[in-house]
């Protein structure tokens, strides 16, 4: 029961995150979308560990993903703040055409 429900959660999170990643133009919203996708990936690692009978390995990899995901969020948010200060926008499309 919980395996099926967890699989639905994983697919849902990955789908929502991927859709948001494709359509969002706001840099901070892109980070939110990335966070949602990574939550799906983390759940998938934990579940894969359980299914394979090696729960501890799946959990330790999920721990590494939590750390990496947090650092990605920190660096991306710092980048977004600096971009906003320099260019006055968070629009990723506008950034590709701006000149200084």
């Amino acid at each position, binding site marked *: *029961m*919980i*395996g*099926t*429900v*967890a*699989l639905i*959660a*994983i*697919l*849902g*999170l*990955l*789908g*929502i995150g*991927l*859709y948001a990643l*494709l*359509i*969002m*133009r*706001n840099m*901070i*919203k892109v980070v*939110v*979308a990335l*966070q*949602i996708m990574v*939550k799906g990936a*983390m*759940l998938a690692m*934990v*579940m*894969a560990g*359980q*299914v394979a009978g*090696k*729960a*501890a390995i*799946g*959990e*330790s990899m999920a*721990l*590494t993903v*939590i*750390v*990496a995901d947090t*650092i990605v*969020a*920190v*660096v991306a*948010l*710092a*980048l977004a*703040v*600096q971009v*906003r*200060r*320099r260019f006055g926008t*968070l629009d990723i499309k506008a950034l590709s055409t701006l000149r200084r």
Partner: protein
Amino acid sequence: MMYILIVIGLLVCALQAVRAQRLLTSALWLAGASALTALLMYLLGAYEVAVIELSVGAGLVTVLFVFAINIAGEEALDFVPSVPRPVAWVVVVGAVLLLGWMNLGTLGAVIGVTPVTTFGNVVWGERQLDVLLQIALIFAGVMGVLGLMVEEGAHPHKIESQEKHG
């Protein structure tokens, strides 16, 4: 029944985090999604990871988001998507169906088998390289926080222009 409610709540939180117009609201919905992910992990038997996800995902990351949004300010941009919506839907539905099809075999699998080795033994004994990588990543995170907190006037370009004018 409880599992289904948790998953519905999790997906609603994730959807609202994407749909919310205000960035601050989006960050709060994301915190809710993190908390429910942690709960689901706890129910899957990953107790240590659930606690870390709750403190880091729902706590630290939310604080960072609120901090960054306060500095950067709100900006509503998402009226015109960067990729046409039909294309995005096709990609997402295709990816989800493919992933679901590849994982059909896990549907009948038994979850919650007693682990052979403990989490601590694996992290500190078998996966020391991961621990080293995490330490390196935390240092990168410190640099990121410094980048987040650096003042606008401290930018080299600004200092240079101030010196020219001054």
